[in-house]
């Protein structure tokens, strides 16, 4: 063979073309601009939403745990008595509480702290001293042998006017609501994954349908189904992972830009990730890749079944 003929072949480009990513099969599938952009956009948008659903799920989980533990960790005793009897009754109550099994050191809330609790309702200038406000005792629960019902009965007998409030009435619905929010977050994640799988499957089927002739040629020259399917699967898996990675990073950036949790103290400001929680969203691109892989493989093998 003459050297002049050799020069007409760009060895490097041909070799790289055939062996790109260790699998020349990638190039057997023609570029698919529209479906490529569709897959990238869908995966990115879904990953973005998934980050927020994940954040919601984790935040509500934390909230439920925090409410449950904080509220279960202490009880309040409210002491109501006419005028000058209230101080004596409070002291009696304190003595009872000090000897209660499973309870820590009771603490009588000073008047300014009580006034602080009432300030949101009455305003800062209200003369709380002039109101018949009950004395409040905070009692930490330290042991499993703490018996709320037993203490309630004892207070009723030995310190009438002292009422135990273990927060059960409003703790249960709050924790239940938080748990339901967490469930909604998980359901959202599942729905997002299913929607992503559907969109990727549709895009893959569109690409496969558009490449029907390519698939037929490949079969005619001896390509096995797995070879053809792998070329499509690899392409769509990459796109799903890449789109999801971008969407995840954007979502994480959005979460990171939320005001800090202690800035306003509200629920929404707690909608974020903490500590290792920041690693959890990184699973989204991996999940997207798996979803893309399975969805495209299914679509490809189904399509190939129609070609002999």
């Amino acid at each position, binding site marked *: 063979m003459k050297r002049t003929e050799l020069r007409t072949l760009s060895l490097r480009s*041909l070799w790289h073309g055939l062996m790109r990513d260790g699998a020349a*099969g990638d190039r057997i599938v023609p570029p698919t601009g529209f479906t490529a952009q569709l897959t990238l956009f869908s995966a990115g948008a879904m990953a973005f939403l998934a980050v927020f659903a994940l954040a919601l799920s984790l935040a509500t989980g934390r909230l439920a745990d925090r409410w449950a533990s904080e509220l279960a960790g202490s009880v309040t005793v409210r002491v109501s008595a006419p005028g000058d009897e209230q101080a004596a009754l409070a002291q009696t109550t304190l003595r009872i509480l000090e000897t209660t099994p499973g309870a820590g050191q009771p603490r009588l809330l000073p008047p300014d702290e009580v006034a602080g609790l009432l300030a949101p309702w009455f305003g800062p200038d209200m003369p709380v001293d002039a109101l018949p406000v009950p004395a409040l005792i905070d009692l930490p629960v330290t042991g499993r042998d703490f018996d709320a019902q037993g203490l309630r009965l004892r207070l009723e007998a030995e310190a009438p006017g002292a009422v135990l409030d273990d927060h059960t009435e409003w703790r249960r619905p709050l924790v239940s609501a938080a748990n339901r929010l967490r469930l909604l977050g998980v359901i959202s994640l599942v729905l997002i994954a299913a929607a992503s799988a559907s969109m990727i499957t549709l895009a893959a089927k569109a690409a496969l349908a558009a490449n029907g002739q*390519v698939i037929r040629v490949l079969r005619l020259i001896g390509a096995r189904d797995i070879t053809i399917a792998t070329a499509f699967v690899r392409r769509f898996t990459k796109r799903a992972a890449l789109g999801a990675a971008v969407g995840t990073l954007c979502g994480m950036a959005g979460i990171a830009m939320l005001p800090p949790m202690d800035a306003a103290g509200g629920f929404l400001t707690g909608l974020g990730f903490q500590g290792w929680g920041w690693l959890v969203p990184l699973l989204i691109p991996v999940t997207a890749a798996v979803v893309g892989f399975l969805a495209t493989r299914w679509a490809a093998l189904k399509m190939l079944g129609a070609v002999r």
Partner: protein
Amino acid sequence: MGDVGFGYHGGPELLSNMTLSLQPGLFHFLTGPSGSGKTTLLRLCYADLLPTSGQMTAFGDDVRRLTRDGIADLRRRVGVVHQDTQFLDHLPVAENVALPLTVSGQSVDMEALRDLLGWVGLSQHARALPPSLSGGERQRAALARAVILSPDLILADEPTGNLDWDMSVRLMQLLIELNKSGKTVLVATHDLTLIRAVKAQVAARVLRIANGTLQLAGADL
């Protein structure tokens, strides 16, 4: 194939009672009028169609029992030059020619590929895209692709159908060279002049399809 029959979509048989055994290393022609079933017979040979009756074996395997992977393996042993020379239009000619290697997971020997392109006279078109090739160049590229896996059998379906006489002769010369190197060749054509020209250079067996049956052509060719 033994007593093979075939009809499209459950209709009447286009081919019936076909009994044929290709002789290894021999040049075969398959001739007959347009629509007689030449292409159908070739498609049966590479399992693109399955016979509706009779028995058909390829390299010792019952074609009807082949798995999809088995069919792919069969097609790697049979090089086919299709009538409509099908290529992947987004790949350069060189990559198209090397496709059978690519899809079968074999590495591409660049030197051999260059030699092959030179043999069919397409060295200057290695980086061209298939749509830019002429009819004759496409047929030669298809032939190069068909032989790159060094198949045992080469099938060509009307390879000179759209070519002028000179280009037809050039293409047939390539097929004759392959036959002389030991390959079994089966060419479907209705061009009797071309058959006579080839028979002047190489021993060839001529089969004729007429009225849905296969006959061995005699001295008239």
